[in-house]
């Protein structure tokens, strides 16, 4: 049975923890709003990009002039996985969910006799995947010092991927990130980057595909567009990740605050009970002392 003083100390410490988790929750909520805004601001670009891409891919068709980034190398022996996770923990199962998806995927590929290479974006994913596949990780990118993720950060990763592809280091590239559905739901997702899965042709209201005037020419534009599209996809993934991380952190911290509250209630109850017991005990001692006289 802990003494009264012990209980008092426990209550004080849980209260302090509760204050911290509450503050973290509020910080996460503020950051979440900003992250959501950033994700929304980026949406028009990626939407138009895929519309244009579908359009132009139709015009170029699948002939030999299509860039290799789109058609692929024709093999699927070497797989590159780009795993995007958060830089920090304390956000529930957010990081481990993404890592688990990537791990299952890797196991499946390895079992099928493929070669797997992994690029980790974000510290937490690296920490988790290092345990199982330390030898497969060829690169890691930390965005810890980046306050606000800009297109340039994504572009750097995109360039790295393209450079690897041009050197023939891999055949298929898959991006792992967490799609932001809502504050409480983040769905880990795998997206194939290379060869680019041609976006479903969007219904063209104008039906103007045939008479488009391309400058310089369709193939050249496509060659310019596809690398850019990879960066855009990575950028979108990073933004969704930030929003998802903040959402997960918010609900994790909300839970923690609530748990701390419950714990304080329980501790206060046993503290009061014990205090009462002590008072009763003292009273009995005094009364029985008086009776004995």
């Amino acid at each position, binding site marked *: 049975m802990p003494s009264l003083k012990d209980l008092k100390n426990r209550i004080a410490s849980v209260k302090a923890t509760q204050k911290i988790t509450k503050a973290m929750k509020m910080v996460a909520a503020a950051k979440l709003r900003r992250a959501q805004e*950033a994700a929304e*601001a*980026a949406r*028009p*670009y*990626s939407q*138009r*990009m895929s519309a*244009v891409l579908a*359009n*132009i891919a139709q015009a170029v068709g699948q002939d030999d002039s299509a860039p290799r980034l789109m058609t692929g190398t024709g093999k699927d022996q070497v797989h590159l996985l780009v795993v995007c996770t958060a830089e920090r923990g304390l956000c529930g199962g957010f990081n481990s969910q993404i890592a688990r998806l990537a791990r299952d995927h890797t196991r499946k590929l390895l079992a099928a006799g493929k070669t797997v290479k992994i690029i980790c974006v974000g510290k937490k994913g690296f920490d988790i995947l290092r345990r199982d596949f330390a030898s497969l990780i060829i690169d890691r990118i930390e965005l810890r010092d980046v306050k606000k993720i*800009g*297109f*340039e950060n*994504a*572009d750097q990763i995109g360039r790295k991927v393209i450079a690897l592809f041009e050197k023939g280091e891999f055949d298929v590239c898959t991006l792992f990130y967490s799609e932001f559905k809502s504050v409480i739901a983040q769905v880990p997702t795998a997206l194939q980057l290379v060869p680019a899965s041609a976006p479903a042709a969007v219904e063209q209201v*104008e039906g*103007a595909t045939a*008479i*488009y*005037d*391309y*400058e*310089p020419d*369709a193939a*050249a*534009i496509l060659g*310019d*567009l596809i690398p*850019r599209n990879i*960066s*855009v996809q990575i*950028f979108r993934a990073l933004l969704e990740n930030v929003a998802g991380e903040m959402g997960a952190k918010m609900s994790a911290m909300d839970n923690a605050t609530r748990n701390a509250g419950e714990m304080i209630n329980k501790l206060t109850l046993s503290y009061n009970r014990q205090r009462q017991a002590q008072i009763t005990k003292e009273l009995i001692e005094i009364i029985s002392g008086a009776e004995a006289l």
Partner: protein
Amino acid sequence: MATEFNFELVSPEQLLVSGRVSEVVIPASEGEMTVMANHAPAMTTIKPGVVTVKAADGKTDRYVVFGGFADILPTGCTLLAESAVHVDDFKSADIARRIDAARAELEKASGDEQRFGLESYLAELTTLQGIVVPA
């Protein structure tokens, strides 16, 4: 005949302009081009340069863009820029940084084609620097 059309300037980070305009000058890769209403459908890549937007009410705005492409239809024009800022918000340090980065890349470049691409990119950047940075 309509004299105005929809114009949108989008960068990956945000939607900068969206509205009715009467005239847009785009630094296309094959030379500057002016887009007006009922332009024939065209698609072009753009080089680093200045986009001049003349809004329907006659107000003129200028934006600095770094690469991207434009999708032109008779009813509207969408400019997807890799990076775009309003001329007033433009910082000369930004372009200097890009020039340095391009130079560094040029030194490492191997193939002729890559070297040629980088050199012309560098030339475009330097020209742009001459235009937007007051001497």
